[in-house]
C-alpha cells in the first residue's frame, strides 16, 4: 500500500507535474469543460444586462453613474494578477515552490485589491446615487452581472488561500500540482470575463 508514495514524494519532478498523472489530466480537462459551462452562464447574464441596461425607471443612467478612472485601475489590477499567476505556474514547472507561493501570494493580493475597490464602487453607487439592486431593472441586471463576477473573484481568492496554506509546509508534488494549475486556469477565466464586463458594461455604458 505504499504505492501512493511516488505521487506525494516524487524523486524527480517531471516537466509538466500538473499533467503527469491521470488524475491531473482529468482535472485539467474537467476544468476546461467547466469553464465552457461558465461561458454560457456569463453569456446569459450579459444578454440579460444588454436588454435591460436602458430600463432605468427614472433612476440614474450608466453615463451618470460610471467613472472610468476607478474601473481602469481595477482592470489593470486584475490583468496584472493574471500575469503574476502565469509567473507562478512558470515556477511550478521549474519545481521552485517558494517562488510559486510568492507569485501566488501577489496574485491573491491583487485580487483582494480588486475586490475592495469593487465593494467601494458599489457602496458609492448606493450611498451617493441611491442606485440599488432593487431600484430598477437596470440596477438588478448591473449588480447581478458585476456581482456574479465579483463572487467568482471571491471564490477564487478563498480557493487560493486554502491551497497556499494547505501546502505551505509540504512543497510541490504530483498530487497538488494539478490543483494549483486548475486554480490558475480558473483565475485566467475570471480575468477574461472582466475584460468583457469592462467593455460591455463600463465602456459601452459611458460612450455607447
Amino acid at each position, binding site marked *: 500500500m505504499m504505492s501512493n508514495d511516488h505521487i506525494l514524494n516524487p524523486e524527480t519532478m517531471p516537466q509538466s507535474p500538473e499533467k503527469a498523472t491521470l488524475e491531473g489530466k482529468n482535472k485539467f480537462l474537467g476544468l476546461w469543460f467547466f469553464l465552457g459551462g461558465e461561458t*454560457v452562464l456569463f453569456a*446569459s447574464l450579459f444578454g440579460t444586462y444588454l436588454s435591460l441596461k436602458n*430600463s432605468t*425607471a427614472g433612476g440614474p443612467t450608466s453615463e451618470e453613474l460610471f467613472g472610468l478612472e476607478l474601473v481602469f485601475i481595477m482592470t489593470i489590477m486584475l490583468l496584472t494578477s493574471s500575469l503574476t499567476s502565469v509567473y507562478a505556474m512558470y515556477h511550478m514547472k521549474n519545481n521552485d515552490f517558494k517562488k510559486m507561493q510568492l507569485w501566488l501570494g501577489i496574485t491573491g493580493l491583487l485580487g483582494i485589491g480588486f475586490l475592495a475597490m469593487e465593494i467601494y464602487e458599489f457602496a458609492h453607487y448606493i450611498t451617493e446615487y441611491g442606485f440599488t439592486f*432593487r431600484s*430598477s431593472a437596470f440596477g438588478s441586471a448591473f449588480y447581478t452581472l458585476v456581482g456574479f463576477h465579483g463572487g467568482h473573484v471571491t471564490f477564487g481568492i478563498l480557493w487560493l488561500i486554502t491551497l497556499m496554506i494547505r501546502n505551505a509546509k509540504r512543497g510541490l508534488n504530483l498530487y497538488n500540482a494539478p490543483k494549483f494549475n486548475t486554480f490558475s486556469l480558473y483565475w485566467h477565466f475570471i480575468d477574461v470575463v472582466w475584460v468583457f464586463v469592462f467593455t460591455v458594461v463600463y465602456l459601452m455604458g459611458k460612450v455607447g
Partner: protein
Amino acid sequence: MSIAATQKQGFGAVIWDYLTTVDHKKIAHLYTFGGGFFFILGGIEALIIRIQLIKPENDFVSAGFYNEVITMHGTTMIFLAAMPLLLGLMNAAVPLQIGARDVAFPFLNSLGFWLFMFGGILLNCSWFLGGAPDAGWTSYAPLSTTSPGHGVDFYVMGLQIAGAGTLIGGINFLVTIINMRAPGMTYMRMPLFTWATFVTSILILFAFPALTIGLFLLMFDRMFDSAFFDVTLGGNTIIWQHLFWIFGHPEVYILILPVFGLFSDIFSTFSKKRLFGYTAMVFATMLIAFLGFMVWAHHMFTVGLGPVANTIFSIATMAIAVPTGIKIFNWLATMWGGSITINSAMLWSLGFIPSFTVGGMTGVMVATVAADYQYHDTYFVIAHFHYVIVGGTVFGIFAGFHYWWPKMFGRILNETMGKIAFWTFFIGFHLTFFIQHFLGLMGMPRRYWVFLEDQNLDLGNFISTIGAFFMAIGVIVFFINAIYSQVKGEKAPADPWDGRTLEWSIPSPPPYYNFKQLPLTRGLDPLWVEKTEGNGKMTPAEPLGEIHMPNNSFIPFVMSLGLFIAGFGFIYQTDNNAWFIALFGGMAIALGAMIVRSVKDDLGYHISKEELEREADE
C-alpha cells in the same frame, strides 16, 4: 478491505456503503431507485390529471390543486425521473463500454447524485408546506413571480440544486469518455450509447447554465425584490422565456439522444448485425445536438418576435427532421436481413420506431409558424411532446433496463411479465395520447381545469383517461417484474444476449474494479470481433498488476445536505429573518465540506496483484 466488500454485509453496512459509494455501478443503482421513485410520483400526478378530465366539469380536485399537479407532473417527469434514469443507465453502461475501471471523477459522480436527490426532495417538500409550485413546469414570468405562497420558491431552489448535480454529471462523462478509453478504443469504435452520452453531456454542459441564470433571476425577483421581470421598474418578462428555452430545447435532446444511442446498441445486438451506417449515426447525433441549440424560439412563435425571427427558427427546426430521419432509416436497415430475436428489450425498441415517428411528424407540423398559431397551447402540443418523450425516452428507458438489468443487478428480467408490461403500456399510451391530437385540433386548451359538456370533447377525454390506466398497469407490472426477478429471477451469465460490446465480456454484475486487465479493442463491436475472428474472449492490453481505486466518501452527502438546508433558508427568509440562520448554516456546511475535501488528501488505495490472483482462483 476489498475482499470483505464482496462478502455478505449487514443491512446497516449496505446503507452506509450506498451513502458513501463512489463506484459508478452503485451510483447507477442509486439513480435507478431515485429516478424510479420520482417516476411513480409523476405517474400518480398524471393519473390525477386524467381522472379530473374523465368527464366534463368534474370536481375530483380543486382548480388550485390541479395547477400544482400539472406543474409538478411536468417538472418531476423531466428533471427528477427521465434524466436521473438516463444518468443511471449511463453510469451503468458507459465506463464498461469503453473499458474503464470507473469514471474520471468518482467523487463528483456521487456528489451529482446527492445533489439531484436532495433537490428533488426539496421540491417535493412543497406538497407538505403550504402547496406545490403552480406556475406550470415552464414557470413563465410574471405568473411565476406573482404566484402567492412559497410553491414557486421550492421550484427555484429544488431545480437549482438538482441542476447543479446534472451539470457535474455531464462534465464527468465528457472527461471520462475522452481520457479513460481502454487501449484500441478509438472514438469511431465507441458503441453508439457511449457516443450519445458524450454528445448529451456536451448539451448538458452548454444548456444548463442558461437555466441556472434563469432560476437565479427568478429567485432574486421573488426573494430579494429585484426587478428583472417587474415591468413597472423596466423589467422584461420575455427574458425568462428566452433563458428557459435556451436551456429547455437542448433539454429535450438531452432526453432523447441517449435513448437513440441505446436503441442503436439494442437493434444491432438483437439483429446479430453491425449497426447500419455507424458513421452516419455518429454525425447525425452531433448534427441534432448542434441544431438543437438554435431552435429555442420555436416555443415562442406566438410571443411576437416578428416574421423574420419566426421563419428562421421554423426552418432550423424542420432541418432537425433530416438527421433524425437518417437515424430511423439506419435502424430499419440494421434489422433488414438480420437474424432478429424478439424479446422485451427489442419489443420496446420496435414500439419506439412508429411511436416516435408520429411525434416527429407532428413536430414538423408545430414547427410551421402559421399553423402553430392554431396548435399553440392546445392538446395537440401535449400529444406531440408525449409522443416524443414517452414514445421515445420512456420506451428507451424500459428497453435499456431490460437490456442492461442483467449487467446492473445480476438477474434477467422475466420475459412474460416484460411482454405484458410492454403491450399494456404500448396500447395504453396510444389510447391516451393519439386522441389528444384531435382534442387539440378541436380547440381544447392545455392546463385547463375543466371542459364544458357537449363540445365534442367528452368521448375523447374519456378514452384518454382509460388509456392512462392501461399505462399505469404496464408500469406496475414492470415494477413487480423488477422485484420478482431480483428475488426469484434467473441468474445472469456474463453475456446473456450474445452481445457485441465490452460490457458483456466481464461477469454480471462486474467486480468492483470492472476489468482485471484492461481489454484490447481491435475494432467496432470489440467482443463480436473476438467472437468471429478470435477465441471469443478479450485479449488483455496489460499484464496483471496493481489496480488503483478511489476511496468512499461521505462528503458528497454532507455537501448536498448543506445546500438542502440552505434552500429552506432562502425560501423562508422572506417571512422571518431567523431563517437566515438556516441559510448561512447550510451554506457553511456545504462550504465546510468543500474545504475538508480540499485539504484532506484522498489518493485512493491499491488492490494488490496477489489479491487479484486469489480472486481469480475462487
